[in-house]
């Protein structure tokens, strides 16, 4: 088990599948779909194997020795002088309690998204090729521990996403696609800049004692590795670190998406096909917050500390702004999209607290939001496939017509508004506990509790507009859920309920990492302040 490169398999299985699909003839639609399904299924199995062999006591975050399933070897190794001619890049994969939940999430969501892609009708082959490529990109981001590798995977997702939205999307797909692309690229150039900046600021000591610049995130995290006059080194009297942090933050925030960089999301969601919306909201949004936790936090702990209030502020804005904006929507999918913005706000709020409860809450919320929002988008997809409209006012009384469907909807909605017994509650509660626990974010936390109320308001209102009241004659003939749709919704529902009743498995998974992160940031704070003193 220890020498089996499970993470590489997780990451590159989809590429394999892509190649297979590439050689399948266009006409073999079914076999293409099945191949994809098998591949994603295998991925899911692997991720569960990963989970079963996971060592719950290993912290990770900044300590290379407590990462698990590490695969590390020189990828680019160019000898030369001290300057960039000498460049070493590692192929460095590994997981800890922070990434494992998201790896699992990715596997689950992709598998379900494959199922929901079943009714894609035009140019199936292209679709699944892009789909699998996207899968690799997402998985890679979550397992990469080398900044360069991380960035490659990060960018790798852009193009497939562009095509998936742009070719298989709705009426204004081209607009949505380009908007998504330009926004994210705009964000990632900042990431790139900071990446290069960090590369020139931190040195890794090789076995033979020579020092070389490095992309290795864990090496960069260790403040002792900074070169005295590295452009982003804390020893450097310039205050570029702050600017770099903000740039990096913006880069990630666009993916979250954080107000005011969120306007790509509603368009992208509305235009994207259901499966893609599911992936977009279920996994892609998490990359933003994951990036912040994985990169920004441990590398710039002192700045994280000093800016936590602003992060919390944006979290609060996201929560309330998103909820209010959602309330104003007429389009079912757009409403869910805005609700995602609101829910990602909880993640931001939680991480800003910088204490155990807050960060666990944030990570848990990432996972829960992933599953819940996936359900919600599937739900929208179901109704859209049948009625071919998403206008909330066009419906009503579907509760009579499609009782089973309504059942799932009710669960999903109440999970979304944080009803106890469903997973959403625990993460939100932890987030608020965290926010209250830290003096800096307490007030913002209190204000954010409004989100609970607003969330209930727009969700129940939607529930009423679509499912309650008199049945609109137009929809007399809508069939209830098909077997496939059951197959997509039931597992998610199971997860949502299980984690709502018994979150321990998921929390144990991340406890060690969360605690070591909290410890690391607080200790690092001390270290850096000592630096600034002289």
């Amino acid at each position: 088990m220890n020498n089996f490169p499970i993470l590489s398999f997780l990451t590159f299985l989809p590429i394999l599948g892509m190649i297979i699909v590439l050689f399948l003839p266009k006409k073999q639609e079914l076999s293409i779909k099945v191949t994809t399904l098998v591949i994603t299924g295998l991925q899911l199995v692997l991720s569960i194997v990963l989970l079963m062999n996971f060592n719950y006591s290993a912290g990770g975050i900044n300590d290379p020795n407590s990462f698990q399933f590490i695969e590390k070897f020189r990828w680019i190794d160019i000898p030369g002088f001290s300057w960039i001619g000498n460049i070493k890049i590692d192929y460095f994969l590994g997981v800890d309690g922070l990434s494992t939940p998201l790896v699992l999430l990715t596997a689950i969501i992709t598998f379900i998204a494959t199922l929901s892609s079943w009714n894609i009708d035009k140019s199936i082959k292209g679709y699944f090729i892009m789909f699998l490529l996207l899968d690799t990109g997402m998985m890679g981001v979550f397992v990469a521990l080398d900044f360069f590798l991380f960035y490659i995977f990060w960018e790798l997702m852009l193009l497939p996403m562009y095509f998936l939205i742009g070719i298989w999307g709705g009426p204004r797909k081209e607009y949505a696609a380009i908007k998504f692309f330009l926004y994210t690229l705009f964000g990632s150039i900042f990431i790139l800049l900071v990446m290069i900046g960090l590369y020139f600021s931190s040195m890794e000591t090789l076995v033979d004692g020579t020092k070389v610049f490095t992309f290795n995130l864990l090496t960069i995290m260790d403040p002792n590795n900074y070169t005295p006059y590295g452009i982003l080194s804390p020893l450097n009297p310039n205050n570029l670190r702050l600017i770099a942090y903000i740039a990096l933050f913006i880069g990630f925030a666009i993916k979250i998406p954080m107000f005011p960089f969120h306007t790509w999301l509603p368009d992208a969601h509305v235009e994207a096909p259901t499966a893609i919306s599911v992936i977009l909201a279920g996994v892609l949004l998490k990359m933003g917050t994951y990036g912040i936790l994985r990169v920004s936090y441990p590398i710039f702990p002192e700045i994280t500390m000093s800016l936590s209030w602003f992060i919390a502020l944006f979290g609060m804005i996201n929560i309330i702004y998103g909820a209010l904006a959602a309330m104003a929507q007429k389009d079912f999918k757009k409403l869910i999209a805005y609700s995602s913005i609101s829910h990602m706000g909880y993640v931001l709020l939680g991480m800003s607290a910088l204490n155990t409860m807050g960060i666990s809450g944030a990570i848990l919320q990432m996972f829960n939001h992933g599953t819940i929002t996936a359900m919600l988008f599937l739900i929208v997809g179901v109704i859209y496939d049948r009625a071919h409209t998403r206008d909330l006012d066009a419906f009503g009384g579907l509760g009579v017509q499609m009782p089973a469907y309504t059942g799932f909807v009710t669960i999903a909605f109440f999970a979304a508004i944080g009803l106890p017994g469903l997973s959403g509650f625990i993460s939100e509660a932890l987030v608020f506990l965290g926010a209250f626990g830290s003096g800096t974010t307490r007030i913002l936390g209190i204000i954010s509790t409004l989100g609970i109320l607003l969330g209930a308001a727009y969700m129940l209102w939607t529930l009423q507009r679509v499912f309650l009241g008199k049945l609109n004659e137009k929809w007399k003939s809508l069939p209830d859920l098909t077997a496939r749709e059951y197959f997509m919704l039931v597992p998610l529902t199971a997860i949502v309920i299980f984690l709502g009743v018994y979150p321990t498995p998921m929390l144990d998974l991340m406890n060690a990492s969360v605690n070591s992160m909290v410890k690391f940031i607080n200790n690092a704070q001390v270290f850096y302040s000592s630096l600034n003193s002289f």
Partner: protein
Amino acid sequence: MTETGIINISLAILFLPLLGFIVTLLLGKKIKSIYLFEVFILTVTLFAAIFVAFIKLSYYVDDRIIAEIQWFKLSETISIKLGFLIDNMTVIMLFVVALISALVHYFSIAYMKDDPRYNRYFAYLGIFTFSMNGIVLTNNILMMYIFWELVGLSSYLLIGFWFEKKSASDAGKKAFIVNRVGDIGMFAGILILFLTYNTFSFESIFHSIAAGKLPFNSDFWLTMTGILLFMGAIGKSAQFPLHVWLPDAMEGPTPVSALIHAATMVAAGVYLTIRIFGLLTADAMMFIAIIGMLSAFIPATIALTQNDIKKVLAYSTVSQLGYMVMALGIGAYKFTFFHLVAHAFFKACLFLGSGSVIYAMHHEQDIRNMGGLRKKLPLTYATFLIATLAISGIPLTSGFHSKDGILASSFAFGSLTGNWIFAIVGFLVALMTAFYMFRLVIITFHGQPRDQHKYEHAKESPFVMVMPLIVLAGLSIFIFYTPNPLNADEGWFISKWLPAPVLSAPNNTRFDFMQETAGAVTHNPSHGTITYSESYTEAMHGAHNPAMILALVLALSGMLLAYIFYQWKKINVDKLTQAIKPLYTFSLNKWYFDELYDKTFVAGTIGFSKLIGWFDAKIVDGIINGAGNLTRLLSVFTGAFDRIVIDGIVNFAAYLSGFIGLIFRRIQTGKVQTYLILVIFSIIILLFLFND
């Protein structure tokens, strides 16, 4: 029978209804008669509850049984636990809930017959019972909150059970959201508690408070915590100013109203306040008392003029709950609980009775179309009457004792603190209660039938519906609580079963009569009513008789008035209403609370959200697109533009390139000589730039 045995049975009591819910919901479509399973489950639960109550009250009467398990943990220090706290109140409440729930189940078998979603209805009743038991059993505030929300859910589902009716779904939504308002406060309170004491359990929290550990080390925050937690009760128990949801909740099926919105769930608020009584400071209690007073008074005045039989009962419920809350606020700890239980029975009886009437009248709810029904529905009438006597506080009923106790306490409170307002309001409400209840009885059952046709077809309800009425009416008799028909203080319910409250709020923050002066406080329940200080006991003794007499007089006079108005018609009601038209309409329109809230909060939120929506579409996107819009203008002049321009940041790029591009177009004329001129010029410019 060991304590673990009690714990296990309680577990069974908790989870059986959940089982019923799951089975009934999942098999509901397949098996038509699955509801019988649910009914059976509830019967079992009921017996289990009776058994537990019996064991506890007879063998473990002085013990508090606590069991805890870890739910999840975040680190070595932070771990979240779930657990049970089983004391006498718990078992009594368990019994009340189980009993009424079971009776409602039976009642519903007939009442809900030929409803398309029959099984689902019973399933919902199941999950409600589950959540309610959870609230009753828990030993920690978090678990309380969890089940709190769950009862909210089940109430949402049951109020909106006939969701085809817009009014029904609206009512459900309203109930849930209004409750959420209160819950936010409660949630905040819980957060404060956890952050201060790093635990949710009542026990440990009280201990630390008693040990002098305060939230943010200030009395003020202790008070605030109390008030915040109490906000939850304001929502659930429909206290002023969040009482508006309860009357609307009557959209639900009548048995549901009886179970949830009269007997159990709405009482949960009071139950919560009783549980946190230990940490309440004087200020917090004052706040609670005032809220309670308002909630007792306002709905009572509204109930005077309502014509919908359920609406009248609803407002009387709010009023009675306000009564309890007020009582708690002035320290009448035991009588609050007493009244809670008593009220649960007779109000359930009243609601089921009204249900049986409505059933007989084919879903006619307006009392102005009823009358003379006592001949047609003798049993319903009899039970209804007993319950009415109970609620009005006529001797020999449970209500007489509980109410009397509360009024006496208010009297004592007045005499001790010189603050008589609660006493006055208390008596006033007693008067009004008697009046509007008898008005209801008279108009409904006495006199001549107003709607002959309906009257003809009306007939006594079947046994399954009448039996619950009889049981509940029976339980409204004093004998179940105390042997002495005139004084409950020595009765087992007050003196034996209910322990004195454990106070942990710092001494200096309490009412004087609650402070711990040397050897004053005794927690020995055998000493009947002795709680708090000696002076309090004195005051209680002194207050007892006058209060009782006064209460009785008022109740009777209220009754009398009702007879004069509606039975003997000595005074023409219409004239009177004409005379006090403004007051009448004000009361008839429920003090215009709904209108007010709709105009302010609801409209406000919706409007604001619209604004935000617009803002998001126009401004936020617009900041980026704004340039783009300019570009569109520009594109009128330059042909190829529109095609290229998309939106957002792209527009911006395109906009820039629009400007630059326009110049470029001038440049790239295709005339080689123009190019060369430019080359020469740029050389010259560079010459000047770099000539230093």
